[in-house]
């Protein structure tokens, strides 16, 4: 008892004044479910039109694939087919690159920066106008909760176009002492976790700097890219400046290998990133890679714990954990470990897993069957490695690919679930005793994309931040994105930065 309190004896709550009723939950657990359940609040998808069949967008037109082959896009929450889309072959990629080359030689870089900027502004506005449609489509095609597609993916995608639109006529201020020139045709390959947002990260800076684009969306989430193609058409963007070719890995490989592509921008797994880097060896193609991660999220004992809990939740359960910069390794100082883990478990109980289109859903569907199976495998690996698994007690729908939010305790640095990127709602928890130990564990990985630090002490943030080798350092927050803020990794998490002024570098030469 503190000596600042002059009261002689502690107040016994049971005898002082009126006797207080104690909790009905005698084991001091909180019951978040038994009373006042939220009714279903589905976002209406009536007005969203998804065509039964989508073609490539090449040279300003939707064109059927030369070989006539189509693939299917599945709604992972229902396992039903949403649409068919073209499977790009070398012929399709070649005609897209030719269209981009023609636009590069004839129109796009010849426009003034100001005019290019105005097209990009126009695209940003059109994304905002169709925001709800894009959000619903994104949730149907990829399984992410509408709360995120509506509040994060789509508004941020528009924001990236707004930000880079403004750069188009100001590039001379971006590179001290240098005059930037565009590169030419950019081949861009994006992943399935943030389909429209990753498209914006790629296309906006490329167009602002005067390049033309051939972009391939992921095979499980092509629809918003094709709706974006409609915007390119509606905005009057000159033909061939943006070309969208759909397909799977083989189509991506055709883009990487095409001799008339000047630059490759890839976001995806480290494994594929390495293949691309090897493929490009000895060529003059520039490239940027945004690859995997195994982000450490470090909670010191002097952290604002309740906000840290929220940060941990955002770090690992945002977008079902399908986030390259996810804080998938929680490192917590021993003194607060028990308290923090209990708070985390309580918070996990309030997470709602289910229909991505329900406005109350926190965790939607795992993006694909393959990814679902991969996550299940890791859960097994974790158990076999002797880790202790805890999952929240939520219900999950019968159909579709859903995974309960999961944490593993009693893990060690050598476990596969600690070393390897799971890309799902699965968190490992390790404890540490000193800052040096935290830093050592945090850096003990080939990755280096993002990290979290939670402490009330400013000097500790700066020292820890300095010592951890990762491209993004979220202190007392996590998973924040902004078009002005550069993003990208150290080591095997990739090279180059996207976002901010730094995001212009990969698209210019001097």
């Amino acid at each position, binding site marked *: *008892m*503190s000596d*600042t*309190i*002059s*009261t002689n004896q*502690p*107040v*016994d*709550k*049971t005898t*002082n*004044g*009126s006797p*207080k*009723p*104690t*909790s*009905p*939950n005698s084991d*001091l657990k*909180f*019951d*978040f*479910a*038994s*009373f*006042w*359940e*939220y*009714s*279903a*609040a589905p976002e209406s998808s009536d007005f969203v039109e998804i065509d039964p069949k989508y073609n490539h967008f090449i040279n300003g037109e939707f064109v059927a694939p030369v070989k006539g082959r189509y693939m299917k896009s599945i709604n992972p929450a229902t396992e039903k087919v949403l649409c068919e889309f073209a499977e790009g072959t070398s012929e399709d990629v070649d005609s897209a690159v030719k269209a981009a080359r023609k636009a590069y030689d004839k129109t796009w870089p010849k426009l003034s920066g100001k005019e290019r900027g105005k097209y990009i502004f126009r695209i940003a506005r059109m994304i905002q106008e169709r925001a709800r449609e894009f959000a619903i489509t994104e949730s149907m095609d990829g399984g992410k909760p509408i*709360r995120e597609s509506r*509040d994060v993916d789509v508004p941020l995608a528009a924001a990236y176009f707004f930000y880079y639109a403004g750069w188009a006529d100001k590039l001379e201020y971006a590179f001290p002492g240098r005059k930037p020139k565009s590169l030419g045709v950019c081949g861009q390959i994006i992943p399935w976790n943030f389909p429209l947002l990753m498209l914006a990260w790629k296309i906006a800076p490329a167009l602002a700097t005067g390049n033309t684009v051939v972009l391939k969306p992921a095979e499980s989430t092509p629809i918003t890219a094709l709706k974006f193609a409609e915007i390119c058409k509606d905005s009057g963007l000159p033909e061939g400046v943006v070309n969208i070719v759909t397909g799977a890995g083989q189509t991506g490989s055709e883009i990487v290998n095409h001799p008339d592509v000047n630059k490759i921008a890839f976001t995806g797994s480290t494994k594929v990133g390495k293949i691309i880097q090897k493929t490009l060896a000895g060529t003059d193609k520039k490239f940027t890679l945004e690859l995997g991660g195994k982000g450490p999220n470090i909670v010191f004992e*002097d*952290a*604002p714990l*309740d*906000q840290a809990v*929220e*940060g941990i939740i955002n770090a690992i359960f945002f977008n079902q954990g399908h986030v390259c910069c996810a804080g998938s390794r929680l490192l917590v100082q021993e003194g607060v470990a028990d308290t923090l883990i*209990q708070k985390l478990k309580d918070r996990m109980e*309030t997470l709602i897993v289910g229909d991505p289109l329900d*406005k*109350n859903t926190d965790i939607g569907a795992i993006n694909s069957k393959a990814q679902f199976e991969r996550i299940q495998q890791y859960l097994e690996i974790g158990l076999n490695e002797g880790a202790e698994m805890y999952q929240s007690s939520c219900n999950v729908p019968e159909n579709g690919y859903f995974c309960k939010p999961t944490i593993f305790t009693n893990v060690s640095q050598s476990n596969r679930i600690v070393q390897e990127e799971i890309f799902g709602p699965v968190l490992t928890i390790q404890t540490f005793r000193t800052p040096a130990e935290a830093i050592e564990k945090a850096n003990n990985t080939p990755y280096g994309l993002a990290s979290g630090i939670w402490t*009330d002490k400013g000097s500790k943030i700066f020292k820890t931040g300095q010592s951890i080798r990762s491209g993004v350092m979220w202190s*007392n*927050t996590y998973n924040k994105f902004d078009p002005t803020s550069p993003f990208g990794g150290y080591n095997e998490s990739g090279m180059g930065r996207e976002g901010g002024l730094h995001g212009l570098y990969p698209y210019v030469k001097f």
Partner: protein
Amino acid sequence: MSIAEIPDFKQTIPIDKIGVEERVSRLNKRSIKKESKLQALKLALSMIDHTTLEGKDSEGKVIQLCSKARTPYAPMPHLPHVAAVCVYPNMVATAKKALKGTNVKVASVATAFPSGMAQLHIKLDDTRFAVDQGADEIDMVISRGEFLKGNYSFIFDEIAAVKEACGSAHLKVILETGELETLENVRKASDIAMYAGADFIKTSTGKISPAATQPVTLVMLEAIRDFYIETGTMVGMKPAGGIRKAKEALQYLVLVKETLGAAWLTPEWFRFGASSLTNDLLMQIVKQETGVYQSIDYFSND
């Protein structure tokens, strides 16, 4: 039950304001529709401390207030009555009489409300008077000046003394969070109040702006949660002042549900200190039940 050790209130529990605001903003995105909405509107109505705290209050005004409290909307007699009326000590007897035969409680502000700028014996007399008049609940104010000076033992002792003066009446401790300014102060004042014996902690007098806010309420709910874990004792929560719309009330209920859970979703453990909120809740309830948007002209102003 073991007696929990009283923490050292000189120690500050760190709270990140932006993080709290983000959490509130995320909770505000809960979409409350259909049955869950009607259920929550009625629940909120039953949690109101229907309040008049004006210098111009008179018996006549208080009697009308009580009438509204026991029957919020005559055309729908099945609706719940509010939890309590909240008045000045010299109006307690009137209110008590007007509410005879109902389960509506009478709460009285005391301890030199709203400033609390008086000597302890005056505050204790004020409290005893209200209790003698029949108050079921006492809403006291803490001495914010002493708190901001760091004189935490003063605050603790004062609350403990008022608690003793309350006898069997329940004690709500008003922190006046608008004058404490930081969330860390809110947390600290909450902890002092609970360890000193508060049955409820309450945000505001309604006389200072800002009054109740959701970030402040969230921090207080988290303090209640941690206190419960530490001591096994439940403490109630009352945001007061500035809550006028049904939609906001539902947002507060979401905060309670996802921080403390179902056990606190009763008038016994959660109250709204408000006056105009009652009618907005009624309008929304009638709209939900009839499908027709309502006008304030059809609801009594008391």
